């Protein structure tokens, strides 16, 4: 919660340092570090081989982008289950366009993918904001609907790397100063969205609506608009995720992005975005994505059987939620105590 606690511009350096150290993001980062160190001790190639370093940064970046969008939605007290299907549909659209027009400019393809994802997000948002139907229900519906369209459109077809331009695919593996381009992209989005969420009226209104929707109504905040924007943002992030997926893996069938929704929600929750809305940061969600996927990669190295890997992920999510609860209770008690002593 560094971004939230950073509300205090004039507090002393000491208490600022303390709030930085005690923040949820720091905790997740330390856990991530621990996993990396432990695994690297077991097998130095996990970090120190060129591929190891690259994979560690690269593998989680697509989920991280999707999780940024998801975090914005969860902060407004909603959830977007359709992100995986949006990733899949966008990836296939990207591949199909390249097959039809091999010379399609790459930057324009990014714009098309993001716009298409945003459009699908708009469908979600409009149904939820104007239809006043719970997001869980609508996005569960569109999860299947978007995937169904994808399957109907793709069939048993598949788009291969050879169908796409080389400079596009190169993006998926290129590195600048050993940092993968995809990771740099994800970080750029993190910085922009993170700054927006912490420092603008619009960003803070997402938090306000998630914190207490009824109060938001009384404050006269534009709730409908904000909810709509959150889902469009999540759709756009997933659309970008689809483009990145196509660039990274080069092979696109009808099942691309399957299960991304759970990884994205899991990442956000592990990263301290409260599932009931109103608190958490997109930085936490990104760190959560890195922790989740790094653990996934580390478990085989540590010799943990396949069977247990999903259970570990599950335990991580439950652990994160319990931690949230405990911290929230402690905070509530502390605040109450402060009030009594004041």
């Amino acid at each position, binding site marked *: 919660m560094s971004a*939230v606690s950073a*509300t*205090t*511009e*004039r*507090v002393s350096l000491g208490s600022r340092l303390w709030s930085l150290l005690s923040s949820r993001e720091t905790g997740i980062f330390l856990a991530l570090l621990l996993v990396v160190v432990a695994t690297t001790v077991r097998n130095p190639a996990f970090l120190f081989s060129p591929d190891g370093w690259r994979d560690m940064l690269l593998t989680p970046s697509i989920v991280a982008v999707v999780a940024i969008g998801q975090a914005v939605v969860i902060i407004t007290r909603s959830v977007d289950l359709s992100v995986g299907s949006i990733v899949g549909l966008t990836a296939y659209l990207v591949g199909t366009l390249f097959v039809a027009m091999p010379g399609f400019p790459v930057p324009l393809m990014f714009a098309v993918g993001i716009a298409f994802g945003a459009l699908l997000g708009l469908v979600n948002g409009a149904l939820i904001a104007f239809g006043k139907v719970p997001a869980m229900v609508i996005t569960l519906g569109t999860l299947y609907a978007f995937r169904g369209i994808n399957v109907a459109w793709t069939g048993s077809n598949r788009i291969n790397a050879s169908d796409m331009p080389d400079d596009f695919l190169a993006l998926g593996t290129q590195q600048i100063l050993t940092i993968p381009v995809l990771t740099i992209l994800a970080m750029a989005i993190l910085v922009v969205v993170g700054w927006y969420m912490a*420092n*603008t*009226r*619009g960003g*803070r*209104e997402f*938090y*306000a609506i*998630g*914190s*207490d929707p*009824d*109060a*938001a*109504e*009384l*404050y*006269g*905040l534009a709730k409908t608009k904000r909810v709509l924007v959150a889902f469009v943002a999540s759709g756009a992030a997933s659309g970008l995720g689809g483009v990145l997926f196509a660039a990274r893996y080069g092979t696109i069938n009808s099942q691309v992005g399957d299960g991304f929704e759970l990884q994205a929600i899991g990442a956000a929750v592990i990263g301290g975005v*409260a599932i009931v809305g*109103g*608190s958490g940061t997109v930085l936490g969600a990104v760190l959560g994505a890195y922790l989740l996927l790094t653990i996934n990669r580390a478990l085989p190295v540590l010799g943990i059987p396949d069977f247990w890997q999903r259970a570990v992920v599950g335990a991580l999510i439950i652990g994160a939620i319990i931690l949230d609860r405990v911290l929230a209770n402690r*905070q*509530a008690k502390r*605040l*109450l105590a*402060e*009030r009594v002593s*004041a």
Partner: protein
Amino acid sequence: MDGQSTPTLELRDVSKSFGAVVALRDAQLTMYPGSIHALVGENGAGKSTLVKIMAGLYARDTGTFQMEGKPVEFRTTAEAKAAGVAVIYQEPTLFPDLSVTENVFMGRQPVGRFGRIDRAAMRAEVVELMTRLGVAIDPDRPAEGLSIADQQIIEIAKAISLDAKALIMDEPTAALSGVEVERLFAVARSLRDEGRALLFISHRFDEVFALCDTVTVMRDGSYVSTTPIADTDVASIVRMMVGRDVTELFPKVAAEIGRPLLEVTGLTQPGVFQDISFQVHSGEIVALAGLVGAGRSEVARAIFGVDPYQTGTVTIDGKALPAGKPSASMKQGLALVPEDRRKQGLVIDATVASNITDAIRGTLTRGGLITTGAENAAARVWARQLEVKTASLDAVVGTLSGGNQQKVVLAKWLAANPKVLIIDEPTRGIDVGTKSEVHRRMSELAGMGLAILMISSELPEVLGMADRVLVMREGHLTAAIDRASATAENVMFAATHSGEEVQ
């Protein structure tokens, strides 16, 4: 009132209906700058509706609404706020996860380049506001965990930083302690001296007289009067509040009063109700009167065992009831018809028959199974007895009218053959015709030897139905009045006045 400066806020002949229910008829309210205006009336007199119209939550049906001489039309709370109307609710609604500073400025934060919020400026202003209001609230702490009083202070800080011209306080003192009330009043007076117009809604007359300079009385959605505080007194305000004809609208047929069936002794739950003792006899209807929030429903729920109590005893027909066990209470013959029947009294999507047999389901099973036939047979008896108007016993309860829903709840409990019936707001939301029918039924039930405890906020109902009237005020029993000597005035007085008890 003429000849003064331009009113800050003026409502004339405002009416508002919700479907067939008329909430406001011809409300009038004029607030002047530099004045604290009291708005009083019984529950349901239309005060809250009027506030919501001023706050931009409701649109009025007819009438005029002016601010500083210019007509205004609020479609949203944001518009009302922008025009300078701030409302402080009894239970403020803040964002628990956000800091005090963010709560004060949400939706209108000062922004710099690229839309960046100027946090330093925001914080500085909140620090200044808190100093001015004379309170020590850390501007950086989250709103979660703040006392109601502190939350109200934040609402007031918000209003000041908005430079609100009209400040409406809807029962702000209901949840405050004495010291907190004093602090609030000091703040209110200083705002008045700055030339703002304040509206103060309260049921506590001592507060109204201590703080306000003018009082407007409302009754049944209509305007009654506006008087300078100096020219009136509690007795005449109460008379204006209740001043309707309380005739024998709700006649209770005299029944033979038998042995005490419900005995409550020294029931106490700190902060909720204190030392509640009374008896209800067979054949008797006892009304528990008082204002909303006086603790009446809480006492009922504690007796039934849904809510806890710390000390005291409850006995049914001489046998002590264990605390906190509704199933034991039901077994010993106690039934509770709750206030919010749609949520607590009925399974709204289930059939009439299954609702009526809800409380006796255990006795209907054969080999662990319930047949619709057995259910209908058991339900038919009571549906007929109470004349529930429904197409069939298989009709879904949600489709029935309010009065018939209430009869289904009654039938459900009567099927369990209780000795004592506690009924909370028996006729809330029921049309006048069905009302008297529900009353007739209750009277019949008393005649059959039931002991009935009726919680009601409607004075005519209390005076018409009850053999005895118990009055609660802020968690205490303040009066016990016999049918013969109960009047609207003495019941209302006991419900609102902190002075000595009325006998």
